[in-house]
């Protein structure tokens, strides 16, 4: 059976894409968990959070019934605290550092508690922050993703008037268009953006694309400073024969479609190969399976110990029934009538560490052939090389170069998030937005 949509019933789609990390059902459950927290000093969990949320404090505030204070503690460090509670790979961040791990006990469910503290506040758009009076400065931000909006919120709090230019018709960036559908709902993403902008002083101009209907020069001329939070683009090319065949798709595009269409409209193959072993690859694989693909195989050129995803993520894929093909590197895609039919991979072996520090895979000379009808490319995303070169922004292969965390080579132009780091997590982008905002604030007060 070829690539097609409507493989499942409505109920099956709903079931397969229901939330993977459900919230606490009631206050008692949240309190039982919150009370377990030891309230560590100089807490390891905080050190695991790129935005340094004061976790013991917000959990303590849940136990004392000060929910609004708890939300404030979270949002003052991370305005995407609600989204992060759903999408952060906490097993390698805060929860991974929880001291209970050292007792071989379940770590505190920090993410779930964070969600408990923030959900109602976001939905009711409760006023958590008072914006300082306008200081008469204007900043343009490009990209309404986590980096851009986090920067916007800090600036607005400090009385700066912010205009955000976003090429899509919705805010949230990859939070809205990239994260697996079973982690965040589109409704939540929209509510989160509304909550962030509800502070006032932030205007988002949608369908405005830098390099298309706006230029950097215009922004520099009309604003006191510019922040670029444009993220990265589509998936890297495989650069192997057969890449142009029908049925070879880009993971980012595939997931974008899942996030913007009704699930039944998303076509998926019968036998799917996903190339890569990072978070995006996992999401592409699990969601293919959940859309009704019979067989999903993840292809990775190194072995399990070198994987880029966390064990928790890998387990999701394994539990979904995805197969893992370790030590295999795509060599060629063979088609029939212009459509994908076979994926040929080199069997690899590991050698000495390469420039990434991981053992370098080299072909053994053997190959394997997988019968597939769809190949999803998920081996990292390509930065917007052309765009950044057009404006003379110093960069490394498209990743914008910055000093002091966010300053580009152009005076008054700052950048952060995936656009700079090449693609990490939402929480890293949020911190980058904060760093950008503080750099811009000192730039504004100096000029």
């Amino acid at each position: 059976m070829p690539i097609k949509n409507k493989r499942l019933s409505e109920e099956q789609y709903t079931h397969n894409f229901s939330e993977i990390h459900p919230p606490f059902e009631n206050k008692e459950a949240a309190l039982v968990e919150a009370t377990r927290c030891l309230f560590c000093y100089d807490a390891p969990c905080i050190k695991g959070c790129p935005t340094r949320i004061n976790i013991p404090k917000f959990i303590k505030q849940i136990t004392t019934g000060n929910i609004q204070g708890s939300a404030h503690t979270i949002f003052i460090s991370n305005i995407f605290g609600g989204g992060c509670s759903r999408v952060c790979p906490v097993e390698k961040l805060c929860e991974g550092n929880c001291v209970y791990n050292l007792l071989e006990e379940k770590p505190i469910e920090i993410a779930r508690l964070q969600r408990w503290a923030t959900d109602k506040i976001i939905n009711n758009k409760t006023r958590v922050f008072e914006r300082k009076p306008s200081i008469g400065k204007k900043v343009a931000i490009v990209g309404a993703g986590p980096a851009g909006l986090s920067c916007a919120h800090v600036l607005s709090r400090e009385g700066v008037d912010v205009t955000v230019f976003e090429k899509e018709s919705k805010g949230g960036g990859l939070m809205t268009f990239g994260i697996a559908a079973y982690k965040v709902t589109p409704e939540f993403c929209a509510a989160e953006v509304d909550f962030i902008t509800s502070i006032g002083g932030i205007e988002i101009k949608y369908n405005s694309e830098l390099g298309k209907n706006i230029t950097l020069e215009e922004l520099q001329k009309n604003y006191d400073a510019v922040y670029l939070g444009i993220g990265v683009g589509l998936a890297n090319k495989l650069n192997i024969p057969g890449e142009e065949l029908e049925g070879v798709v880009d993971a980012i595009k595939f997931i974008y479609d899942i996030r913007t269409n009704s699930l039944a409209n998303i076509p998926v193959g019968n036998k799917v190969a996903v190339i890569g072993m990072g978070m995006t690859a996992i999401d592409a694989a699990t969601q293919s399976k959940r859309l009704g693909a019979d067989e999903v195989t993840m292809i990775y050129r190194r072995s399990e110990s070198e994987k880029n995803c966390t064990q928790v993520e890998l387990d999701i894929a394994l539990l979904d029934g995805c197969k893992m093909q370790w030590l295999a590197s795509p060599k060629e895609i063979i088609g029939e009538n212009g459509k994908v039919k076979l994926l040929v991979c080199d069997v690899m072996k590991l050698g000495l560490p390469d420039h990434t520090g991981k053992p370098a895979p080299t072909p053994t000379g053997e190959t394997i052939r997988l019968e597939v009808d769809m190949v999803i490319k998920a081996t990292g995303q390509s930065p917007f090389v052309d765009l950044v070169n057009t404006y003379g922004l110093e960069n490394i292969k498209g990743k914008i170069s910055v000093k002091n965390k966010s300053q580009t080579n152009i005076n008054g132009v700052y950048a952060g998030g995936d656009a700079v780091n090449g693609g990490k997590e939402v929480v890293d982008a949020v911190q980058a937005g904060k760093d950008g905002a503080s750099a811009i604030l000192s730039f504004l007060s100096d000029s």
Partner: protein
Amino acid sequence: MASLETNFLGIKSPNPYWLASAPPTDKKINVLRAFEAGWGGVVWKTLGSQVKNVSSRYSAINFHGGKVMGFNNIELISDRPLDINLKEIVEVIKEFPDRAMIVSLMADNNKQSWHELIKKVEDTGAHGIELNFGCPHGMTERGMGAAVGQDPEIAKMVVEWVMEAAHIPVITKLTPNVHSVVPTGKACVQAGTNALSLINTIQSVTGIDLDTLVPNPYVGGKSVFGGYCGPAVKPIALKFLATISQNEITNKVPVSGIGGISTWKDAAEFLLLGASSLQVCTAAMTHGFRIIEDLCEGLLSWMEEKGYNTIYDFIGKSVPTLTHWEDLDINYHHVANINQDKCIHCGLCYIACEDTSHQSISITQGNPYNTYSIKEEECVGCNLCQLICPVENCITMIEHRVAPEYLNWKEFQARGLPLNDH
């Protein structure tokens, strides 16, 4: 096989656990259920002139996720007709002749009322009487309860009236709402009481509803001071009990220990400080009569482990270890030690010591885990770090005597030894 059998002034019970005078003992159905569950005896809910109660009646203190660390009530003595109570007492004794049946009394404040009440109770076949001199609310306004227990002269007078009429053992229950229970205890012993029991509840305000601004328990927009009991009061009860066990006049009579007993460990502690029977109220009210099972089993297995055959082998054993501060050995010294293999790096010991004690723990920053170690030369051995450490036996206190010989404060001063220099 160790045995929990108890003989208190000739009143026998299969174990030392009696239910204290309170709602669990206020009617036949409860008491029968308690005896079926295995309780050794009951002190029947206080009888006197019938009263009327209000609604609501109870409030509580919760702590760090745990419910009812402390319990508070504004109930009075029995609000059921005296005749019914007496009839039910007879019936219960008949069904469970091997259990202790003590009846708590609070008569009107004259000799005749006491004599009449005692006669009626003795006619039921009850094994003993407990005089309620401790109820801290409602009754005091009428010159009864704590008002009697707070004034040694009045207490003595009432006990004398009682002793004129009583033929069965009399236990006088003391109120803790005094600076010291010893003066009243002494007066009651001198007036002839056969035994003492303590403590009754402690006057309290448990909290205020932050919406209505009315303290709890709430009674139509108002509240009153209540009587506090439950686990929170155990340390206070133990202290009062110890003072009774130390005093040469009060320690001549047996004592029934009450106040916050919830586990067999609490029970062992009351016995070690001189109680020879135990009374329980809140623990039963919060978990039901079934708690008697572990109260007995836990105590028995501890006794077997320690080689005690009966409770009489260890009653009062800890009393001599409570001394005066000025007799403590100043040359005794211990310092904290952190077992680095057990440490989970929570930093609680560090911040407590650094902010509030003696700055005796050093911190070495790590990512994500800091390392904490004791500065032995600074450590005064206060125990704070060990008390708050969440891991058992991670912080231990290790003896480092200053000098081998015993040295108390008086001697220390007499020798003109130096005080701390920083």
